[in-house]
């Protein structure tokens, strides 16, 4: 680094000009560069996968990485607060983070908000306060969602009485709470409807309007929540308003959320228990709408192994329940996701911070990307 005070004043401007223009070259021919360049994000792509890290044991300042699954490279990172959740626009290059902070990091005044982000710069644009707070749990996707056409944002809340905070993203306005006693999480369907899982093993479907007047319809209980509950993480077909749930023992339930009256359209089994295998991990399943296939992260184990990492992915026809193939993973992983396009990529994430990218048809390992935070847990594959 030259000491500018030793350079004749007249030359300083020349040097600065060259550096700014990025035009100069050293005697050896290596171009002198400007350090002022800030890259922007490429446009949203089906092979961009987001990795959220709740950052144990820190917890207060967390982050999400964006990874290009084709190149196997990190594209950028965003900060987030305590046990945050992300949701992605289908219409614009933007996304939202629901997050929580304390004014003195671990103490002081609590504030909860939805932060609006621009995709191109990964920069925060605006904060929409959540005056009633949000559910604080080790981050799980179905606690925050955007409805179709970006009509509403929904943030599950627990004080511990359960409500859903509704936000109008188009007017950056918190609208209020919808109370659905006892039921948890949000599985959106359509522009102004969402489902919730209830403690008796049923689903509630909530249709609402701009006044937050809600019509709540319940299914009959369809699983035993005490002995064989379904995981909270589910796999949605947003176009068809279907949500697939899987239970600890491998029973699959297809929920039809296409009308105000929710129903269970289909039930089948992975038939894995008899083989000594179970679905598990933090995110045990994913759905690809182009091939109408379901992907399950599997491990060898029995009862109460539901958070064990898996080393195989079993791929099923979502309509027939037939197993199409088994993908052997190169290590143990705790979350699974798939791209939403026809040229499908499979993503698996380990708690140690490694993301693996596979060709979802051939099962070929394409990339492994490490050091994605301290304890990453959650994958997002925006539907584009």
């Amino acid at each position: 680094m030259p000491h500018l005070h030793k350079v004749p004043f007249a030359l300083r401007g020349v040097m600065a000009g060259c550096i700014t223009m990025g035009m100069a070259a050293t005697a050896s021919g290596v171009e002198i560069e400007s350090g002022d360049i800030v890259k922007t994000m490429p446009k949203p792509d089906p092979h961009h996968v987001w990795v959220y890290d709740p950052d144990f044991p820190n917890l207060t300042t967390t982050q999400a990485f964006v990874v290009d699954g084709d190149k196997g490279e990190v594209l950028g990172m965003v900060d987030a607060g305590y046990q945050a959740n992300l949701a992605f626009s289908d219409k614009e290059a933007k996304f939202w983070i629901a997050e929580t902070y304390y004014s003195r990091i671990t103490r002081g005044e609590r504030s909860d908000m939805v932060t609006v982000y621009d995709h191109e710069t990964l920069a925060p644009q605006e904060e929409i306060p959540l005056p009633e707070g949000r559910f604080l749990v080790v981050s799980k996707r179905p606690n925050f969602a955007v409805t179709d056409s970006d009509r509403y944002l929904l943030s599950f809340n627990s004080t511990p009485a359960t409500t859903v905070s509704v936000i109008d993203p188009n007017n950056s306005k918190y609208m209020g709470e919808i109370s659905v006693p006892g039921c948890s999480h949000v599985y959106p369907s359509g522009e102004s409807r969402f489902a919730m899982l209830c403690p008796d093993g049923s689903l509630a479907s909530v249709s609402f309007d701009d006044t937050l007047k809600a019509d709540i319809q319940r299914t009959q209980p369809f699983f035993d929540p005490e002995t064989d509950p379904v995981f909270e993480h589910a796999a949605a077909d947003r176009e068809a308003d279907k949500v697939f749930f899987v239970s600890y023992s491998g029973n699959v339930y297809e929920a039809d959320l296409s009308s105000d009256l929710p129903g269970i359209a289909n039930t089948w089994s992975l038939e894995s228990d008899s083989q000594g295998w179970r679905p598990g991990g933090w995110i045990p399943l994913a759905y690809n709408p182009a091939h109408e296939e379901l992907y399950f992260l599997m491990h060898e184990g029995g009862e109460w192994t539901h958070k064990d990492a898996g080393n195989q992915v079993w791929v099923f026809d979502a309509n027939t329940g037939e197993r199409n193939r088994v993908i052997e993973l190169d290590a143990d992983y705790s979350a699974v996701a798939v791209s939403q396009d026809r040229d499908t990529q499979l993503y698996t994430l380990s708690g140690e911070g490694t993301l693996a990218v596979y060709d979802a048809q051939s099962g070929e390992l394409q990339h492994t990307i490490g050091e994605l935070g301290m304890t990453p847990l959650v994958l997002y594959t925006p539907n584009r």
Partner: protein
Amino acid sequence: MTLDFDTLVERASRFLANGLSRRHFLSWTGTIVMGSAVLPLLPIDRSGGKARAAESGAQDTQDDDDTQCNYWRYCAIDGYVCSCCGGTPSSCPPGTSPAPTSWVGTCLNPVDGKHYLISYRDCCGKGSCGRCACLGLEGELPAYRAQKNNDIIWCYGAPDMMYHCSSAVVIGEA
């Protein structure tokens, strides 16, 4: 063995009612009645090396060292063990606050062969201790069955929602 939900809630409620203000008790029982409480949880692989073996019997657990993940009371714990952070299985480290709410589990004592109801109470109000991560999964249910879920930040009713560590208080025979 497992307890049915009502029995579990009733016993845990009775225990908590003994030591709580009416306001806290009402808020907690309200939560349970509504089926949505909260609890702290650690990432799966975070405690991976220290995770308890699934379906572990009494032969795999011990009653001597409460800093170890196979200590018998930790069968459904998820978090940093308070005994490694300046507390004990039934007390919080200095400067933290025990949450009046908790999740519950049923653990087998290897000495007397009996099952006990364990209240996993989070100690709150500081950043995470980060020591002795331990994950137990026996009887652990998803967050919509909140009272048996160990992922929730169980700091409801504490001065703030910052999770520090998890205790494991015996509250009765199951």
